[in-house]
């Protein structure tokens, strides 16, 4: 399952302000789909030149893309807490 939503959350400790942004990644993927189709021949060409199996390359990148789900990055210091989650 590909990641569908990204969450970026910033919390300022001093100003006690919260900022949370939900990014609907599924819309982003839909928008990028035409570009991906256009980029596909270029990718095939690059793979052929570098003697790499293009199908294997696509499969690998797809696996990496799909595995991004559930990634959680949190950085907290004296001023702010930044949280990035991919759901």
């Amino acid at each position, binding site marked *: 399952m590909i990641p569908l939503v990204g969450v970026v959350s910033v919390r300022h400790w001093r100003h006690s302000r919260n900022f949370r942004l939900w990014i609907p990644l599924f819309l982003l993927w839909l928008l990028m789909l035409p570009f991906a189709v256009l980029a596909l021949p270029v990718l095939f060409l690059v793979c052929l030149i570098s003697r790499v199996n293009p199908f294997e390359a696509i499969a*690998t990148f797809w696996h990496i893309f799909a*595995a991004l789900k559930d990634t959680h990055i949190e950085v907290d210091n*004296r001023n702010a807490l930044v949280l990035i989650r991919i759901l």
Partner: protein
Amino acid sequence: MNEHRRQILEMLSAGKITADEAERLLAAVERETPAPSSGNGSQSPVSKAKYLRVLVDSENGGNPYHGPIKVNIRVPMQLLRAGVRLAGLIPPQAREHVNEAMRERGIPFDLSQIKPDNLQELVDQLNDLTIDVDVDNKGGFGQEKVKVRVFCE
């Protein structure tokens, strides 16, 4: 109660380890202890870690520019599995360059020997990985302590 478990609990009661560390150690002991057989010869499924965790805890003494920093990263193991497959995409010419460079630095390793099965085994073995790094520096702004923990859960 087995000996390992008793030792961990004693270390916890003596304050040598934290509750979190004790929990992880107990989990590791449980993993090592073979599960009782059901008698039909079937093997119980191996508990696989789902995430690689990296925790960094920096206490920066009296530095006025940045205080204590805490970093908490959780990476799905699936991402690591997918990432290691990238080694298979290295073009043969580049692979030779890499092999040569590694040989020059005293690492006689052939990248072409990396097979998906080996990589899978390597990632699976990360389940038991725990790295603890403690740094205690005396800098210009006072004492700086950095604690890094890498483990799977």
